[in-house]
Each structure stands twice: as C-alpha cells, then as structure tokens.
C-alpha cells in the first residue's frame, strides 16, 4: 500500500573529488526531511550518474563538487539527461562554486547552485518547493 508519492533524490559525487562529507550531510538532511536518498558514492562519471538516476527513477540529482571541475561535470550531466530524452529530473549542484560560474551553470540547465554557508533547512526547503514527485 502506501499510495503516496515519495520524493526520491540522488546525491552524487562526480569526478575525481574525494570530499564527500558535505554530500553525506546533505543526504542525511534529505532523509530526515522524509525523502528517499540514493547515494552514488565517490568518483562517478556523469554517464554513471545519469544511468543510475534513470534506473532509480529519482526526481532530482544533487551534484556535489569541491574540486573545481564543475564547469564540465555539471553541464555534461544535464546534457546526457537530454540526450536520453529525460526532461523530468531536476539537477542542482553544490560545493565550492565561484560566483562567476553560477550564472553560466544555470543557463545550461542547472536549476540551483548551493554554496558554502547555505543551511540544511534552505536546501531541504528548496527541494520541497521545486521538486515534485511525479
């Protein structure tokens, strides 16, 4: 039974970046907000992330990057989703992202970027307001 949609989210660590404490804390906050959170693990390619997101039928992918390669990894994820004809998975990102990159990332389809100092409440609230379980 159940007959209630649960929000399903994938928290992913793309690229050669071993710092996942932030991602794990976000995953925990999402769980406490009642979401089902699939964690990808470290060192994922955008291809692997997108394939996993499709198999898991998530409503959102949250990309975490602290190693500076976001300008390739984030847009590539969005591009792969489009190539696969997936238009209903929201992609957002977080981590060490310079202000000057944010606009360009948003232009290619990253819905929101969260930078250091964002509270967990803000991150959760954003999902509740912007991600609809289908």
């Amino acid at each position, binding site marked *: 039974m159940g*007959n*209630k949609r649960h929000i399903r989210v994938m928290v992913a660590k793309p690229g050669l970046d071993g710092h996942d404490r932030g991602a794990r804390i976000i995953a925990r906050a*999402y769980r406490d907000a009642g979401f089902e*959170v*699939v*964690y990808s693990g470290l060192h994922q390619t955008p291809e*692997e992330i997108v394939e996993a997101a499709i198999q898991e*039928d998530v409503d959102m992918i949250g990309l975490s990057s602290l190693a500076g390669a976001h300008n390739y990894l984030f847009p590539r994820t969005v591009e792969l989703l489009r190539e*696969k004809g997936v238009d209903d998975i929201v992609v957002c990102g977080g981590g060490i992202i310079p202000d000057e990159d944010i606009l360009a990332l948003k232009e290619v389809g990253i819905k929101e970027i969260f930078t250091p100092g964002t509270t967990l409440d803000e991150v959760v609230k954003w999902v509740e307001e912007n991600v609809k379980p289908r």
Partner: protein
Amino acid sequence: MSSVAEKVIAGDIRAVARLIRDIDDGMPEVREILKELYPSTGKAYVIGITGAPGVGKSTLVDQMLNHIRKDDKTVGVLAVDPTSPFSGGAILGDRVRMQRHSMDEGVFIRSMATRGHFGGLTQSTRSAIDVLDAMGKDYIIVETVGVGQDEVDVVKSAHTTVIVVIPGMGDDIQAIKAGILETGDIFLINKADREGSDKTMSDLRLMIDMDKKKYEGGKWKPPILKVQAVFDAGVMEFLEEIEKHRQYLIETSDGLQFRRKRNRVQDELTEMVKNRLIEEVLENLTETGEFDRAVDSIVEGKLDPYSACDNLVLPALGVSSGGPVKGSEVL
C-alpha cells in the same frame, strides 16, 4: 497489451524504472500492467541475500555481478534498505558498492526502502521481481537486512536463500536463528580472514547438524563457505554452490517453475488478498470518517472495540452479522 507492458517486456530501462516506482508508491493502475506481465514471468532465477548490516552483502553482490556477467547472463538487483520510522525518509547506500556495473546494460540495479506499510514491502518487492523477470533478466538478486517478517518473507520467496555472517557474531547467530536461519540454503562467512572464523564455522555447522533429520533422504543440506567478498576470494565457489542448489531444485521439484509451486502461490495470494482488503476497506473507512468516529466512541467508553470492529468490517464486506450488531451502551 498496454504500451507500458510492451516496453517492459522489450527491456526498456526507463519503463521498468518507472513501473517499479509506481509499484512502490502503491499506484492502483499498476495492477492491470502486472496482470499483463505475469505470463512473461517465472523464468528468472531468484537469489535472496540476507544478513546483518555491515556483513558485506552489497560487496558480495557486486562480485557476484562480475562473475555472472562473464557468463553473459543478465542480472537484476533489488537492494532493500530501511526507512527511518521517524521521518519516513531513507538513505539507500547499497548501490555505492555496485556502481561500477551501472553502465553495463546487462545489469539493472534498484534500491528500495522498506517504507513500513502493511506487509507492503513483501508485495512490492515481489511485484518488482516480477517486473525484472518479465524484462528478461536471467538472475534476480534481492538483498535485505532480513529483519522483520516482511523481509523474511521476501527472502523466502527466492529460489536460493543465502545467509551472510561475519566472524565474532556468535551470539548474533543465536539471535537470527529464530528468524530466518531455518530458511538458509547456503551460509557464508564473509570477512573470513578475521579472528574467529573457525569458531563461527563450527557454531553454524553445529546448528545445522542439529537439524539432521531435515536432511535425510538426500535433502539439501546447507553448505557453509568462507569468503572474502572484497578480494573476490571464494565468490566463484559460492556461485558454484548456488548452481548446485539450482540443480537440486530442478531434480527434486517440478523443474524451474519453482515460484509457481503451490505453497508459494498460496503465500503470495494470501498476502495479496490481505493487502488488498486493508487497502480497500481501511482506506474507505478512513475517508468517510467512520473509523475516527469508532475510535471516538471507544475512547469515550460508549463502545467496545470488538463491536466497533464488527460494525466497521461486516458492512464493508457486505456480510450481515447474523443479527443486529450491538453497539452503543455496551460498556
């Protein structure tokens, strides 16, 4: 046939993923699709893997995938993780260990949360198994902690049930004994390089030998294997045991139509009828407010719960109670 069913049978990943979501979310429309898929099921070999958190189930499954794929067989994995009873959320982390297979088209991995609905896990996992079966997977591996009746039932519906322990779990072996230990077809001692693996081995062996009568007359006696999943040590031998068990089932039961065996079908149907009744009756009563009113009258001392239950259930089932149902003023 509906287009969803057609896509699933054709192996469309996205259609399969979405259908499992609908099953999980309890959408009533999946029933029609599952009916259509049913004739295409019953071909996959289902392996249930269970054991306490941290014994290495996901790592083991990851290695199994590697070997099974070398034989060019396809695999579906259902990894079940617990839902937080407080928030209703879940962190599904089993996938992390298997993620290297995510680009392999012959592997479909799906994480599921227990969610804690009325026996729903058993049913939704079984339905998800049917979906992966209908999409043509040769093997389906179901991984769960195996706590609680629901999870035990899930594991029991596998062809081969594998119980994973680690050295030093002496007392824990006793603890799981009452639950699913009886259902194990193969026992694995993972992380076997750790201290105490011989002791664990002899504990398990003793426990199995105590059931000696069960294995008389050529019945399957569960083997115990030491493995180190992370190094892939012993995994090949483990898969050979699964194959032996499969051969045993083919020889002793009516072939591979194991899931269609009478007692299994009976269990599944009982479960399904139960869930369906709860769904239809309870939900309706909740919506109309009848349920809440009954609770109120019990709390206020106007009605006993037994009469309240009669009042609620009998009309909903269209049964006359064989006389006026007593109600008010009983207490």
